[in-house]
């Protein structure tokens, strides 16, 4: 098994007719992902790429196709509404790819989601990939914007706030012969649906995942919390990398969440917390897969 999604997961795409959503819906189809529905209000009844039915509402799409997971590609002003539409339709998982959603909107989304059965990943995230067993991992479940071909089916779980750093780690693993169970990008915003800790717990319970790479960055305390839990409960070897050691205080480094303020959320404090939890530290981004291999052999 993998976590969150399998190659059989039926996926719907909110915002499938926008240029961004359409491009990545096509790439997911090419990867072999079961994209079963698209949603664009006002375009219900049409077909995407001559094969994927488009619906006006998520509720309709779920009832008619049995989709259980959605990827949200709609623009920031409408994204909070789109996420909550997926929650109302009873989806298991909503993955919000959209970058630039106002933090007040996400605050209300989180509050409104309390008690619901839906899990949210993101926003401002690359999504997730459970690699398939075909050539270049074809046949897997690709939700979001990650390049599918860099993956390989296997037993390492990857969790990260950043897109391209995740791809680096995955590529390093694949080129060294280590495949992945599932790779999850949780996003770079200060308020997100799923934390490092949530994903670590899932990897720990997943029989297919044998080792974990956790990639973090400056800002907040999510990495420290994950490390503290891992020290007590995680049975699997973990390697970690933290970006942002040279970032100046008070400046937002691209991601809205990547900001050091009042001496909190520094790379040094996070690295210390990871080390204290027995997590092998990758000194540089070139060292992520090798750090995990060192830890597995320890």
């Amino acid at each position, binding site marked *: 098994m993998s976590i969150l999604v399998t190659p059989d997961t039926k996926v719907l795409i909110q915002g499938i007719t926008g240029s961004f959503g359409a491009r990545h819906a096509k790439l997911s189809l090419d990867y072999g992902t079961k994209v079963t529905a698209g949603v664009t209000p006002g375009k219900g009844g049409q077909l995407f790429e001559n094969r994927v039915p488009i619906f006006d509402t998520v509720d309709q799409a779920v009832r008619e196709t049995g989709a259980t997971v959605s990827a949200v590609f709609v623009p920031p002003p409408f994204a909070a509404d789109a996420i909550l539409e997926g929650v109302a339709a009873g989806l298991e998982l909503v993955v919000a790819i959209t970058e630039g959603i106002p933090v007040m909107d996400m605050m209300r989304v989180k*509050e409104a989601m309390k008690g619901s059965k839906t899990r949210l990943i993101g926003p401002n995230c690359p999504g997730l990939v459970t690699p398939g067993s075909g050539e270049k991992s074809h046949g897997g479940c690709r939700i979001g*914007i990650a390049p599918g071909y860099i993956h390989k089916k296997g037993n390492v779980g990857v969790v990260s706030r950043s897109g391209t750093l995740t*791809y680096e780690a995955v590529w390093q693993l694949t080129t060294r012969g280590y495949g992945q169970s599932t790779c999850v990008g949780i996003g770079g915003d200060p308020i997100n649906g799923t934390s490092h800790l949530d994903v670590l717990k899932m990897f720990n319970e997943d029989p297919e995942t044998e080792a974990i790479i956790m990639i973090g960055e400056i800002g907040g305390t999510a990495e420290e919390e994950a490390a503290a839990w891992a020290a007590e409960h995680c049975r699997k070897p973990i390697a970690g990398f933290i*970006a942002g050691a040279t970032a100046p205080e008070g400046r937002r480094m691209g991601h*809205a969440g990547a900001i050091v303020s009042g001496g909190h959320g520094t790379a040094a404090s996070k690295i210390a917390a990871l080390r204290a939890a027995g997590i092998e530290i990758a000194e540089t981004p070139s060292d992520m897969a090798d750090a995990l291999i060192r830890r597995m052999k320890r």
Partner: protein
Amino acid sequence: MNIHEFQARELFAEFGVATQPGRVANTPEEAEKVASGLGKGKLVVKAQIHAGGRGKGTFKNGFKGGVHLCDTSAEARDLASKMIGQVLVTHQTGPEGKEVGKIFVGEAVDIARELYFAILIDRATSVPVVIASTEGGVDIEAVAEKSPEKILRLPVNPFLGLMPYQTRIIASSLGLTGPLMNQAAKLFANLYRLFIERDCSMVEVNPLVVTTDGRLMALDAKFNFDDNALYRQPSIVAMRDITEEDPREVEASKHSLNYIGLDGNIACLVNGAGLAMATMDIIQHAGGSPANFLDVGGGASREQVASAFRIILADTRVKGILVNIFGGIMDCDVIAHGIVEAAKETGLSIPLVVRLEGNNVDAGKKTLESSGLKLESGQNILDAAQKIVAAVKAA
């Protein structure tokens, strides 16, 4: 995005948050007019720049202090004439200082007590949190460290907002009793409304003061606005003062590039924010010093790479460039052509190391090698960082 002190006071006035009476002035004449419209007591004249430490700063014309007290409107005019158009240097501006375009003239207040009040969105719980303390006018981080019991943290339900009973709890914890409690309840409620309606990520009132004649008012404030929400906050966008921003960052934002200037001499150009931060780190790890953070976005188009090169090269401190691209979905060859074009167009004369990885990477590397440009390829990020650091040291 940051705003000026006088703009913060305008926001306070709009939302009914009590503050000291006063107005902004663009000229000494205007300063005199503003001053003569204020009360009979002492006046305060304050230079308007974004940087802190104004009171202890020095103007390049030798005049000391960006904050002064005076008694008459004529004196206010004289102080204004020494500040407006002059360059003020504080510990936050750097040695180059900032030119003062406007000043604030207000009624000076006699302070009985200084308090602290802030609202921010707490990442851990994803709700707004009010932070209040009896220790105002000082560094709140230091208070939090030494005497955490003097700091009240009160979470707010986003759907209910700050409830009246909560404003009373805060007032009571700050020792605001009797008629001051009613003033406090109103001030806190209005400030919370301002925080929500203007999409702030933080409002910090430090100090919140009680005057000797029993008034509660916000004396100084720091606002942070959520950049993601600026599209729906035209009145906040109108307060933007680009003369206060790094011109390189202003230029970069025009090309949808995410750029932050730093002090080092090795520029980097990277796709993705996390990888861009990690690239800065690895430059330092290799013994160099990064000149910037620059994220050209997950896509990294040819045009963006060219604009990024121009912005990087406009900084005369830059002695070398490291390009680090993981072309996941983008074709590395397209990116390589973009780099070659940009390097030729800008007449690049400093060392350039390129590390490309991903889709169609072999074609991309060939394009770079056959370009006739003087550049080196990095095998991986660490190798690339070591090469650029060595090249800059040798130059």
